[in-house]
């Protein structure tokens, strides 16, 4: 993971807007339709090109072409099926949070609009009637599926035509897959999570072997806090949920050099109140045990912006980097570059300027309007430039 040697580098959390050329992609992927590979490669090319034009240093594939359904995971892992939901079941643990109970009226509106993000003009997906379940041993089905994805990204980079200094590729952590793939086979959830970890190891390796930076997406590490039933004390949550998942992620990272990995956590990107979020300080020491070099986390939205102060108390190990969110996906208002610079500088002053890579809180794609997503990335780059001028003056 490149550090900010002589200026603040920029990146983002992964998801970017769907290019105009394939607006119908989400619904087609949702239905499991076959999609022409050339369309995807060329769309990735557009998105990479645009990141380079805006001035993003570490680019991604935009993730708009992946669905999180059985068509996708079934190609990667064995032991997964889909079945209709039964009375009282949810399709994702996101739908059984404490926050949902507290803000029942708000979530009722959200559900009836079919949105999590309130993006003007968005085309809501039909509500899920099924849930994914693990009904047999979870095993990797080789690396053919991930290899195809890596190939698509590389082909997109080639089509973009510019010089890409660094590129990252996102794969979900074992401890987050189990919020939408439900265990109906393993004796314990712990066993299930470790089986997922074992299966993911080959995929993680394939990403790194391809020369890409592996980004592990792991909102589960904090999101289970408001989902676990019955609610836990922080100490118990750390022991029973967080530590187990961190062990699992480290198991999945076995044999992978730490300096090729960045770890992304967030408190869930839906546009809700987030008043039940677990404070970063309750878990930061555990996060530092993860065998990753960089940490991407939310620090721009109003529930977590104050948490930059956590790093005043916690020492960041020498070899690690912070990739704080300085751009939020939870408002249409575009961050002022001066604000972006302020946010970067306060991290830089605590952990050292070369150890800060500026990013977004979470993916911007489908979280804000396409026009706004790109304007926000431009503000990120402009803000990083201001911060660099001040930090290297």
């Amino acid at each position: 993971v490149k550090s900010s040697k002589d200026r603040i580098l920029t990146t983002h959390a992964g998801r970017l807007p769907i290019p105009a050329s394939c607006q119908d992609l989400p619904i087609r992927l949702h239905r499991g339709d076959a999609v022409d590979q050339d369309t995807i490669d060329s769309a990735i090319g557009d998105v990479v090109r645009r990141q380079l034009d805006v001035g993003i240093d570490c680019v991604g594939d935009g993730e708009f072409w992946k669905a999180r359904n059985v068509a996708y995971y079934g190609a990667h892992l064995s032991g997964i099926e889909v079945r209709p939901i039964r009375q009282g079941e949810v399709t994702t643990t996101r739908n059984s949070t404490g926050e949902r109970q507290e803000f029942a009226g708000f979530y009722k509106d959200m559900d009836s609009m079919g949105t999590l993000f309130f993006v003007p003009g968005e085309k809501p997906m039909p509500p899920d009637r099924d849930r994914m379940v693990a009904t047999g041993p979870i095993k990797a089905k080789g690396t053919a599926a991930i290899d195809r994805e890596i190939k698509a990204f590389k082909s997109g980079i080639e089509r973009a035509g510019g010089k890409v200094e660094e590129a990252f590729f996102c794969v979900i952590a074992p401890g987050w897959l189990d919020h939408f793939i439900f265990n109906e086979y393993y004796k314990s959830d712990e066993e299930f999570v470790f089986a997922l970890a074992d299966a993911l190891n080959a995929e993680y390796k394939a990403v790194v072997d391809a020369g890409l930076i592996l980004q592990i997406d792991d909102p589960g590490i904090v999101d289970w806090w408001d989902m676990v039933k019955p609610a836990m004390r922080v100490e118990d949550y750390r022991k029973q949920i967080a530590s187990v998942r961190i062990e699992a992620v480290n198991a999945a990272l076995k044999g992978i050099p730490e300096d090729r990995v960045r770890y992304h956590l967030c408190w869930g990107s839906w546009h809700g109140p987030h008043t039940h979020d677990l404070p970063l300080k309750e878990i930061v020491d555990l996060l530092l045990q993860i065998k990753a070099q960089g940490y991407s986390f939310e620090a721009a939205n109003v529930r977590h912006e104050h948490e930059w102060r956590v790093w005043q108390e916690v020492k960041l190990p020498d070899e690690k980097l912070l990739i704080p969110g300085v751009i939020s996906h939870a408002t249409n208002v575009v961050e002022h570059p001066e604000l972006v610079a302020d946010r970067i500088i306060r991290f830089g002053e605590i952990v050292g300027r070369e150890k800060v890579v500026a990013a977004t809180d979470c993916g911007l794609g489908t979280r804000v309007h396409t026009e706004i997503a790109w304007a926000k990335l431009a503000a990120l780059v402009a803000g990083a430039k201001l911060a660099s001028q001040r930090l290297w003056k």
Partner: protein
Amino acid sequence: MTAVDRVLTTHVGSLIRPEDLIPYFRKIEAGESYDEPAFERRLGEAVEQVVKKQVETGVDVVSDGEFGKSGSWSRYILGRISGFERSNEPSVPPMAGKDHRDFKEFYEEYESQYGYTGIGKGIQAGTWIVKGAIHYTGKTKIERDIQNFKKALAKTKTVDGFLPVVTPSAAVIAARDEHYKNEGERLQAFAGVMREEYQAIHQAGLLVQVDDAYIPGKYDVMCPPAPLEDYRKWVAGRVEAINAALSGIPEDRVRFHICWGSWNGPHTNDVPLRDIVDLIFKVRAKYYSIEMANPRHEHEWRVFEEVKLPQDKVLMPGVISHCTNVVEHPELVAERLLRLAHLVGRERVMGSTDCGFAQSPFARRVHPTIMWAKLAALVKGAELATRTLWGNRQSASAA
């Protein structure tokens, strides 16, 4: 209000109307008949409830939620003045400037879903035409609003109460004038008219809050191509009109609210506060409500590193944003208050919101449950800031 020994809290004024009031406003807007006694009864109750809820939440300086206003925060005045006629010709959107041009697709989608500038659908369309001299005819309505609010205040304990009103410069800006010689003359007429409303509020012992989203918002419409200087000249004229309307009211009973438009849009062409702050402080008010919580203006607390806040003035920075559903963490609220208090003095900062939560009866910037959670976060954050600024002692209530 007397000397304070803690960070007080307030907000910008408009709060989301109860569901059962909205059908009345739909009829009022559509010009249809409605059950007036039932509406008046329910309005009085609703004001009482919303005042009580603000107090229970811990807000110090409260409003009536602007529940009595139809139309919008500015166009309500059409129901309280003479001289205007409505025509069906489509109106020119007064706030569509560079931001609308730069984010064309976004605004098309946004406004088709949430109405013009996002203040809800159902506000009467068409153009307003000035056909004769403007006179104030709203005595009954303002007296009703004052009485509803005062009755509600009498039933509870607050630090103070304010009623928001539109400035002469922001009242019916999209109008076509067939009566006055020029804009200056019309502005003067509006100042005279608004003065009556301000006086009524002041004489009732309430704080007058004058609202103007058009002063900051006009920049995006004028510039470019106009240079900043032209715009500043335009602002200076507006400030004069506001002061004329405020004449006779002591500064310490006046709050001035500006914002760059409360729609949840990009706002990338907003005029920097630094470019107008001197003109803003020329408005004869003691309390200034300025957006500082949304990410386009959050950095502008630094303006006060360079600009000296004129003596005896108090800032009411927005430390809560209506442009995100995420509820501010009280620690963030405290941080925002503290950095400003360190610059201008702890007695001169009052915690507030960026803007109202409902600029019309049909607007809803966030869900009502989130609005109340945000106001609770404001109160909590102000308590944290107080602890830092005044030490850990139990703070006595002010006023």
